[in-house]
């Protein structure tokens, strides 16, 4: 054991150290990247008293097993899953005090795809433009690999006797927080008019998530609206969440790793909240798109951000009182 706290990775399959994304990237030609379920990532950091932009672990599709060298404070959020410490289950979406040498197993249930693990004090990892978010295009990032340790900035003394469990912390988190709905809210895209009446069928049809999903995009099978306007489209910046209708029988939903420009018209755009939902969709899952307005989407988004503010405040208050 070294003086510097470490999180030893006993097993990991598809996990990375990430953060909320490289927000200065798009203006310099790079994708924003970062945690695909932004709410879950923000919540994990809030629950351990970290800054919202602190690095944390994102694991996709597969669980992982971790063992800290020192006492640490962790939180697991995202895809519904119960972390287990030395084989004993503990609730997700709440702070979890882990002793040095204990084994933490984070599973991913069938109800979601991605889980987030934040550790109080966060990870010491390289950054580019202020962000540690992996970018597969430029081969930047910190993978989480079996057998390798991750450096932590701080340890954290045990907060509570775990016999009292999670009841010590009540941060007012709704019980259904990790539930993944099958409906994605979208706002008409800037090029929606080019699709004429085909746009309405986007909302009347059912779609199936294909196996072709990653951090760049999500392909969904179903009715593909066709442009009525002919001609090439000039390359323009496309937002994360843009729904494009390339030729073929699949819609493409752009995720945070997307190239920042494209020459396809933008049919509709997922709301920020729907982007978090999309991050948790699994192949084969059936979904629908539901039309909403930017005003309604912003109201829903701000409600979630205020919930995060309350969680962060309560966490900081609780830790200050306990330490």
């Amino acid at each position, binding site marked *: 054991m070294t003086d510097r706290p470490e999180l030893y990775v006993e097993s990991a399959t598809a996990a990375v150290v990430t953060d909320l994304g490289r*927000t*200065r990237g*798009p*203006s*310099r*030609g*790079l*994708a*924003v990247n970062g945690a695909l379920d932004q709410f879950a990532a923000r919540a994990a950091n809030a629950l351990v008293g970290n800054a919202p932009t602190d690095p944390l672990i994102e694991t996709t599709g597969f669980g992982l097993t971790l063992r800290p060298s020192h006492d640490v404070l962790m939180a697991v959020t995202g895809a519904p899953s119960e972390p287990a410490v030395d084989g004993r289950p503990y609730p997700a979406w709440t702070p979890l005090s882990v002793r040095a040498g204990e084994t933490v197993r984070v599973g991913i249930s069938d109800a979601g795809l991605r889980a987030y693990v934040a550790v109080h004090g966060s990870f010491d990892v390289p950054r*580019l*433009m202020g962000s540690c978010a992996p*970018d597969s*295009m*430029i*081969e*930047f990032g910190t993978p989480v690999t079996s057998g390798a340790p991750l450096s932590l900035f701080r340890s954290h003394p045990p907060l509570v006797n775990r016999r009292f469990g999670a009841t010590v912390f009540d941060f007012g988190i709704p019980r259904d927080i990790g539930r993944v709905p099958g409906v994605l809210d979208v*706002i*008409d*895209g*800037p090029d929606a008019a080019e699709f004429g009446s085909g746009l309405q069928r986007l909302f009347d049809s059912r779609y199936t998530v294909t196996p072709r999903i990653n951090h760049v995009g999500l392909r969904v099978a179903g009715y593909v609206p066709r442009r009525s306007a002919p001609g*090439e489209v*000039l*390359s*323009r*910046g*496309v*937002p*994360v*969440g*843009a729904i494009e209708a390339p030729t073929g029988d699949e819609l493409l939903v752009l995720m945070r790793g*997307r*190239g*920042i*420009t*494209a020459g396809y018209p*933008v049919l509709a*755009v*997922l*709301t*920020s909240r729907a982007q978090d939902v999309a991050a948790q969709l699994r192949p084969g899952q059936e979904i629908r798109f539901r039309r909403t307005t*930017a005003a309604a*989407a*912003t109201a829903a*988004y*701000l409600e979630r*951000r205020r919930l995060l503010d309350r969680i962060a405040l309560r966490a900081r208050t609780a830790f200050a009182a306990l330490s």
Partner: protein
Amino acid sequence: MATKIEVSPCGDAALRVTVVGTGTDDVWRAVHRLAGWLNRGAVHPTVSAVPTYDAVLVEFDPYHATAEAITSHIDFWDAMPGEDEPVRSGVIDVPVLFGGDAGPDLGWVADVIGEPVARVVELVCAKEHLIRCLGGPAASAMTDGPDFPVPVPRLATPRLRVPPGAISVAGRQLVIGPVAAPSGWRQIGRTPLDILRTDAEAVVPYRPGDRVRFRPVGQVAYDGLLGTPMRYRHDD
């Protein structure tokens, strides 16, 4: 300024700002001036802008800025007298190995424009190419194309991988790709220079407004230059 600005929503966290005008260069300059102003924090430090040809994608966090506030700031900017601050314009010399494995589509492009291969190379190297914007993937330099008589069609099926340093054309555009990536553009050559640097904040050594001058090199010179960092002519 003979331009008009249109703002349309792009979801709940982005706006597309389109500059409408008759002169392509005026529109492009306005787009990049507006993006520069926004990226310097004119509305809020969290607001960022992606400028291309005739449009700026403005991204924001609805927690810190609203579409209404950004739109009114942009209206205000549009009403400001257009002091035409000079766009930065450095020149980058780019050696290129044309044809063969380095440019598998060179012969095809020659056929399409109805000129011999040597003339295609001559046209590509005849002028300084203005970098119009940085595009996906990975801060590729999108420039005005060579003065070909006709636009160049894209590949029907994109290649799954073109190598780093590929020089490709499509339509009336040319692109320099810093990294290996899929591409539907016609690859005519490849530069031996190292373009991408992930240990530096700038990542690529160019910005919109810079100019690129291509110079043909043979295989021996190409091999000798492999791994040399790409940089401005005046940085010697």
